[in-house]
């Protein structure tokens, strides 16, 4: 469940949340944000239909700026399955996990090209990129558990005994 396979779209350093989800779209209904995903990005032509290439690979400080949770929601609704970056801004990283969008810190930026095939195991931290193996720090047990529930709220409901627990 916590393995993701797909091909890559690539972004640069310091991709901020205004680029991921511009200010003019912040008041839109929270379930209709996918069409605004990366609408303000300056360095790629983001393909909204990303059934095939649904893994984003970025440089440092991905998701910096505003705390708007609409940013990771827009990426998730647009079909992004995983974001891998050299580093993430703290609030974006936590927001992503909390809404069930996996984000992983790994330094594969130089090796990755748009369209490359990638296979990621979030629990072990193993990445296969173009047949080559990389190791990175796996996601913590808590983060994996949150992702298995699809986000923080369903996890909290299970913790409170309101829903069944996921094995």
């Amino acid at each position: 469940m916590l393995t993701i396979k797909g091909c890559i779209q690539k972004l640069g350093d310091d991709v901020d949340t205004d680029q991921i989800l511009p200010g003019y779209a912040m008041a839109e209904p929270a379930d209709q944000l996918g069409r605004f995903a990366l609408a303000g990005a300056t360095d790629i032509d983001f393909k909204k239909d990303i059934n095939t290439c649904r893994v984003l690979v970025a440089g440092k400080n991905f998701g910096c700026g505003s705390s708007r949770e609409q940013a990771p929601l827009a990426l998730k609704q647009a079909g992004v399955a995983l974001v891998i970056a050299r580093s993430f801004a703290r609030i974006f990283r936590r927001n992503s996990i909390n809404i069930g969008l996996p984000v992983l810190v790994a330094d594969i930026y130089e090796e990755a090209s748009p369209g490359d095939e990638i296979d990621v195991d979030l629990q072990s931290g193993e990445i296969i990129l173009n047949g080559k193996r990389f190791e990175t720090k796996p996601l913590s047990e808590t983060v994996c558990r949150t992702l298995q529930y699809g986000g923080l709220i369903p996890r909290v409901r299970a913790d409170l005994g309101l829903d069944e627990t996921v094995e």
Partner: protein
Amino acid sequence: MNRIEMWLAKAAGVESCKAGDDLNCRVSYVGAHDVTAPIAIDQFLSIGVDRVFNPERVFMVVDHIYPASTANARRNVQKMQEFADRFGTHLFAQGEGVIHQVLYEYFDVKEGDLVVIADSHTGTCGGYGAIGVGVGSTELAAAMATGTVDLEVPEVVNVLLSGHLQPGVSGKDLILYLAGMLGTDYLTDRGLVFSGPGIKSFSVAERMTVCNMGIELGSMITLFGDEQPEEETIRTIELDLSTLEAQIALPFSVADVKAVKEVAGVPITQVTIGSCTNGRLADMEEVYNVLKDHRVADHVNLLVFPASRSIQNEMDKRGWSEVIRNAGGTILNPGCGPCFGAHMGVVTDDDVVVSSTNRNFPGRMGGVGAKIYLASPLTAIHSAVAGKIVTDLSEVGSC
């Protein structure tokens, strides 16, 4: 322990803690605004609890898109009103001001209180010694339900200040200088504490400006300490304030910083002065002091937006508002104003802006090509009068 560790340990009810520890901390105040509250409310309701942890400690503020520019924006306010009615929480929805200023003016926040707001500029309360942590909507929803938040204790960097600021240099110049030195992510997952005898140079308002922008360097928690160096930190950065000049961040990064004199002469089309960063009374006074003797340049659009109603009332009472308007400025209602490109001063790709706000990302104020320079209110108002970026008005005669 340093002071961040000390306050986090207190909030968690443990005797001590160190960097890297995971703590479950009790929160003192929990807040959200009209961009983050609607999702937080949905998430809170889907948890399925029937009350917030303490209605007196939960507040929501309509500051980002007020008055509503779209029906969707208005719908979000209605949702906040329904929530406040149902759960008995505080709602500020009548133009009281920006959430961080509302917290300061309406609540009795104590030194070391843990403030959790669904907004990245929550660190602002570090200007008066509180621990501000910015979160997203879902984490905020969980905090409303439980009264707690899970935090990892950050490593702390100490900026040790000595000397006195030169005239015309302010807290904004200090934090821009540090952004240029440290970059946008050096402080990610870290804390930042200002201490040393130099902190006496800064009023509480200026300290709030400095802490407001800690997040632009990635900082998790930013605050002012006391005149003694902070203990148990990973790095000490010593800075003699008397060497600090007026600073400006160039498009499109808060960390691309130069002395204002290095970019003097760049023609500009819009100046925005206000926001949670620099919309307090002392900032408005800089604008008034210049505009009582000068006019805004013909081709410059000057937008002034005080951080709160009480600040605007004081501007009115002192006659500043009339002076600013008659000199060519437009005063907007208190709030976030044009800072983030949703309304009230949206720019085109051809605009060049000098702003006292906190971000100059591509598209931040509208057009992706618009060039935004970030500076102090003093540099901004001087530039508005000159019609170009300037260090002072020595080249411009008075009117």
